[in-house]
Structures are given as structure tokens and as C-alpha cells.
């Protein structure tokens, strides 16, 4: 028979703490936007904060922290690999555009 693990979940208090944390991070993102940082620095900060938000959401709201580690290791590395590959190959699209032959 299929073995379904007994379900563990955070308490409602923990959910509220995560929710407040996520709202504070959004506030921090807006604050940093108006600090007039260089575009690259701002992008790095916003992406970093968005990744923290995603991690909090996936681990607590989506309960990945409370599932078997096999689920995490089967899903997340694949997604990271796919995104890294996209980042790696997208510049190729721009290179190919520059290699187009000029029309007569």
C-alpha cells in the first residue's frame, strides 16, 4: 500500500509571523527602490529579497519544509537548473540577432 506520511504543519501563529515577514520585505523593496541605487545593485537587492520571499512561501505556506526531503530534492534543483540554463542560453538569442544577414 502507498505510505502517506502523517501531515505536520506549522501553527497559525507561525503563518502570521511569516505573513508579517513577507509584508515587511515588500516594504523594504519599495524603500530600496527610492534610495536611488545603481540599477545593477537595485536589481540584485530586489532579486535577493524576492528569493527570500519565495523561500519563505514555499517552505511554510506550501509546507515543503514539512514534507519528506526527497520531494524538495526532486523538485527544486531541477527548477534551479532550468532557470540557470535559461540565463545561460538567452544571450545566445541576442548574438544570433546580430549575426543576421543584411537584406539587399
Amino acid at each position, binding site marked *: *500500500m*502507498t*505510505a*502517506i*506520511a502523517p*501531515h505536520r*504543519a506549522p501553527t*497559525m501563529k507561525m*503563518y*502570521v509571523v511569516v*505573513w508579517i515577514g*513577507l*509584508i515587511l520585505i*515588500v*516594504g523594504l*523593496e*519599495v524603500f530600496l*527602490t*527610492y534610495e536611488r541605487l545603481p*540599477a545593477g545593485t*537595485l*536589481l540584485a537587492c*530586489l*532579486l535577493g*529579497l*524576492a528569493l527570500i*520571499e*519565495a523561500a519563505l*512561501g*514555499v517552505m511554510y*505556506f*506550501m509546507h515543503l519544509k514539512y*514534507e*519528506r526531503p*526527497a*520531494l524538495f530534492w*526532486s*523538485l527544486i534543483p*531541477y*527548477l534551479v537548473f*532550468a*532557470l540557470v540554463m*535559461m*540565463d545561460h542560453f*538567452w*544571450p545566445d*538569442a*541576442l548574438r544570433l540577432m546580430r549575426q543576421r544577414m543584411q537584406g539587399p
Partner: protein
Amino acid sequence: MGQSAMSVGAAHAARIEGSPYGIQSKKLAIWLFIIADAATFGAILFAYGYLRLANPGWTKPFAFSPTIVNGMVMTVVLLTSSLTMVAAVAAAQAGRASTGVRWLGATMLLGLAFAALHLREWFAMIGEGWRLFQNPMGGSPLFGATFFGITGLHLLHVICGVVVIGVIALGFRRGRLDAVHVETTALYWHFVDLVWMFVFPLVYLMNVR
């Protein structure tokens, strides 16, 4: 015949391996869908990033008020809908069906509020002359394509989510669906919420005046 079928069934059941993840197949299926959909959003956000880099005079049209304020309100509404969703899952798992349905209803209302705020913003921009390939500020016409494309795909996910939550709430109230269905729907809803955590900073905050 009956005994024979039973013995075959028992032998078959004994050979079925346990779930390697300890979760029901419907939950694993929604996780696989989420990962595939995350890759889709990742692709369009990467495409947006490279388009933005390839156009040095990229338009930055968003003022703090009303656009960023509206975006912050939308973000809080969506985050709050995730909180009501976890409350719905907790109630459903505890066997409190009516409470679970009420929380699902609250999540639907918040989802609809998000969609209404989003559409109000869209209509205001369209009123200013923004179109898919038309930029009233004179910059790259691709701004409209990326903005309406990315936020439109996300809005479509939100609207689909609201419909699905309604269907699940109805089935759960009538006893046709169980707590795992509610939990599976919640996973999708949280995912839609998490995608917005990337759309808001990259599409809105990176384009403030």
C-alpha cells in the same frame, strides 16, 4: 471467482511500492505542474530582462502614486489571501468543513479584489494611450508588450485560481471532495502569490520614474 479476484487484488496491493514522497498522487501532480509553470514564468521574466537590457532608453513610467501604491496594496491583498488559504487548509484538515468553506470564500474575495485593482490599473494605462505595441511616452514600444504580457499571464492565473477555489469549495461543502483537494488547490494559490513576489519588483519597482 470472488475469492480469486480478492486474492489477486491482495497480491497486487502487496506489490505496490510506497510513495517515495509520502504524499498523495494529486499533490505530487500539482507540485510538478507548479515547477513547470515556474519555469514558464522564469522564461518570460528572463526574456523581459534581456529586452530591457537591449533597449537602453527603456521607459520608466511608474510614479509612486498611484501605480506603486496600488501595487503595494495588491501585494498585501494577495499575501493576505495566502494567509486565509492556509486557514482554510487547517480548518479542512481539522474536519471543520463550514469554517474551511468560509476561509475559502474569503480567499476568493481577496483574489477578486486583486483582479479588480489590477484591471483598474490596466484601464487607466490604456486610457493614457498604452497598448501592446504602443508607448505614449515615446520610448520602446516593447514596454507595453512585456508589461501587459507578464501581468496578464499572472492575472489569468489569479482568475483561474478564483474559479478553481470556488469549484473546490462547492465540492468540499457537499462532501464530494476532501481536505487533500483543498490543500492541493492551496498549493496552486500560494504559487500564484509567489510569482507576484517576482513580478512586482521586476516589472513595477524596476520601472519607477
